[in-house]
């Protein structure tokens, strides 16, 4: 047997008096600590007419608080060599950083301040707005982004939180005010929706003491939950072409709406996606499109389930003259796996790979923190890393074949292509 022994994480959970969750994993690999603070404040919770509000909040939340000016925050970060990241997805907003262990208390207090008390100085709001508008303009010129965003729209509809672009549109971003940012922060940020994960060269006691000091006196009403709006499943093929005449290469985004991360069939879908477009250079897709046909530098699939049914997205970048051939090759691989399921050896190798890669995925403070935040968000338990090998091992050929058969139907695929138009040959 070649699968590495799983030594396992040993995180400690501590719940503060106000309900905030703190999870600490001590490591001794490097004299550094990763701090992450996640809240239920993603795009799902935006008002439907202010798409991009969560994204905007993520850009300006760390630019001034009641206690610290934007400049004081900048100095605190830069003096310690630290980059503060704020990432926003459909459901969550996460503030995170990696710092030297000696700077842990300083950075934790700063993150606490940013999470609790942003004040949105008007000049900062305007500067960040201009940056977001520029970023949206850059996206409009990027065939990969254009194809991916168009696919999301085809799959979920332009008004669905899973279908809209995270940054919003120039029109919505122009309408977002300081007041709407403050109101969104007030409605979504509360101890009951806060999940803190600390990983690194820091003792559990030190981390929990610090978390208590920074967050214990925080009170805010529990944010209302919002269910993921229903998704109409399409029974037909949809295809969209976005002409971008000045580009050298066309980008293809081809996909389906899948299942929730909480669906019991999740692990079967995960294995199936690895076979289709991940294993090695990019699974069966890369084997066909890159290795056999030499058509693309990249061809792969990504599976991104969330609370609601997330997408499976196949991506490839090809010569504009090869778009039809590449889409045809994707159709063939999708159809073949859907109809016949995987081969025995493929399934065995993939399961072995996924199980064997767990120690590698849990090697760094940052990757452990991300794993623990995900486990926490979906309620998978703090022992999820230890149970994961068994969950993958238990996936059967029948389950994978069934998942493939249910999902991989070219006649139900959505396909978005962005690139230079080609005259009909």
């Amino acid at each position, binding site marked *: 047997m070649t699968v590495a022994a799983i030594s396992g994480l040993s995180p400690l959970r501590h719940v503060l008096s106000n309900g905030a969750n703190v999870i600490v994993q001590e490591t001794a690999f490097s004299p550094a600590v990763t701090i992450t603070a996640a809240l239920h404040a993603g795009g799902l919770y935006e008002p439907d007419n202010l798409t991009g509000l969560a994204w905007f909040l993520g850009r300006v939340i760390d630019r001034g608080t009641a206690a610290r000016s934007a400049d004081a925050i900048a100095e605190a970060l830069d003096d310690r060599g630290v980059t503060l990241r704020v990432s926003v997805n459909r459901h969550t907003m996460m503030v995170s950083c990696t710092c030297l262990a000696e700077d842990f208390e300083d950075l934790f207090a700063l993150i606490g301040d940013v999470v609790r008390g942003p004040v949105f100085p008007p000049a900062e709001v305007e500067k960040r707005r201009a940056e977001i508008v520029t970023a949206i303009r850059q996206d409009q010129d990027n065939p990969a982004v254009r194809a991916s965003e168009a696919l999301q729209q085809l799959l979920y509809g332009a008004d669905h939180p899973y279908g809209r672009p995270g940054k919003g549109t120039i029109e919505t971003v122009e309408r977002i005010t300081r007041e709407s940012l403050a109101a969104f922060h007030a409605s979504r940020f509360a101890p009951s929706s806060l999940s803190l994960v600390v990983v690194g060269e820091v003792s559990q006691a030190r981390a929990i003491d610090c978390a208590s000091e920074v967050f214990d006196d925080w009170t805010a009403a529990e944010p209302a939950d919002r269910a993921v709006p229903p998704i109409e499943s399409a029974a037909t093929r949809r295809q969209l072409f976005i002409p971008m005449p000045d580009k050298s290469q066309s980008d293809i985004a081809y996909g389906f709406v899948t299942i929730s991360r909480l669906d019991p069939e999740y692990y079967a879908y995960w294995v199936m996606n690895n076979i289709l477009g991940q294993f090695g250079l990019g699974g069966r897709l890369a084997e066909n499109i890159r290795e056999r046909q030499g058509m693309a530098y990249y061809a792969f699939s990504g599976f991104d389930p969330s609370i609601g049914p997330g997408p499976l997205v196949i991506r490839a970048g090809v010569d504009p003259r090869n778009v039809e051939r590449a889409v045809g090759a994707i159709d063939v691989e999708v159809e073949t796996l859907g109809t016949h399921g995987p081969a025995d050896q493929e399934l065995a190798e993939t399961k072995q790979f996924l199980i064997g890669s767990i120690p*590698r995925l849990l090697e760094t403070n940052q990757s452990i923190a991300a794993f623990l935040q995900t486990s926490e968000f979906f309620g998978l338990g703090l022992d999820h890393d230890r149970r994961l090998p068994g969950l993958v091992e238990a996936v059967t050929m029948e389950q994978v074949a069934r998942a493939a058969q249910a999902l991989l139907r070219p006649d139900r695929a959505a396909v978005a292509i962005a690139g230079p138009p080609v005259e009909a040959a």
Partner: protein
Amino acid sequence: MAVSGITIPDRSTRVARLDNGLKVVVQEVHTAPLVSVWSWYRIGSGDERPGSTGVSHWVEHMNFKGTTNIPREQMKGIVERFGGTWNGYTWIDQTTFLETAARSALDQMLFIEAERMTNCLYDPDECESERTVIISELQGGENDPDQLLDTEVTATAFRAHPYRHPTIGWLEDLRAISRDELYAHYRRYYVPDNATLVVVGDVGADDVLRAVDRQFGRIPPGDPPPRRRPPEPAQIGERRVLIERGGTTAYLRFAWHAPSATDADFFPMLVLDAALTGAKGLNLWSSFRGAPPQRKARLYTALVEGGLASMVSGALVATAEPFLYGIALTATEGVALPSLEDAARAAIEDVRHDGLREDEVARAKRQLRARLVFESDSVTNIAHQIGYFETVVGPGFLDRVAASVEAVTPEQVADVARRRLARESCTVGWFRPLERRA
């Protein structure tokens, strides 16, 4: 080892050289049940001649496509069965291949690398198929106007030195290079006396050295040609590039001739870059992937906080010979390139004239000290750093990095700013977007 109060776990390193010239570096790191194996070759696009640009990178691609003892279709799966990942890259001074997997995969990983050194197949059909894959890689890069500008600025900044052409090669050369040229390049440079093998992870150094000797010991030495690159003549006047194409966003780039890693100016320049655009660190594999700490950096405060640019980045990379120091800017929507260039110039001229404040230099050094810790957070990253500096710069360099940063003085930083960021040795690139035709 203790550097300015940071305790780095003591990791002993063993260095050996086989009779055939292969250098082997092993570092034991027992924090995870993993091992990372990297083979490094002292060959990159800076060793190529006009007409065969891109050959090193194409050879790298071909070295994943089957060997005498590993059929093409079995290359995939060997490392994966151990939960592993594999990859490779080519740049101006080096070509490298890696696997990171469970420690029990060590023998398989060494076997793959030994096969790669001597037994790759270069099947003619596979060479043809890869030609179009690489052209697709090139054209994908061209979709990004900023990358296109970078290529043009680099080609303009150099007149004679082969660092001027992109590592991926010029399209015309990629259409023309033959299977025999690829194979000849492979045979010339993929020899033990042109390579370094690095193994880092949960292994015993003695076991590794024995296993390496078993796998590589019988490979005969080659006769790698000495590196001969035409020197770059001094630049005596500003050069400019203007690209006008359909697009949405304007981009601005500056490039100056940079010190090589062994030049006395290198570390003062590294500190200068940290003060101008935020410290990245020195790990080409990982340090440039995220944003650096830069909110107090000179060009960030002047240009991004000043509302003229939405992004600024600087790049100084350790290279064997003088490459470029680049600064890249994305113009904020509505800002014209001349006003962005003027403001950037003014900020740079301030530093050239007055140097940096002591607190700016101190902050830049503190940032670099932290980044050196962050960029060594995995067996893969540690192995990369060992192999990179061994191959590109030479033995001993990596051990001296932290102390070299610490020793930089504000006077040295002011001096390199004055001498090295002069207008007459600068190349400026504009990407000006044109309204798309309907």
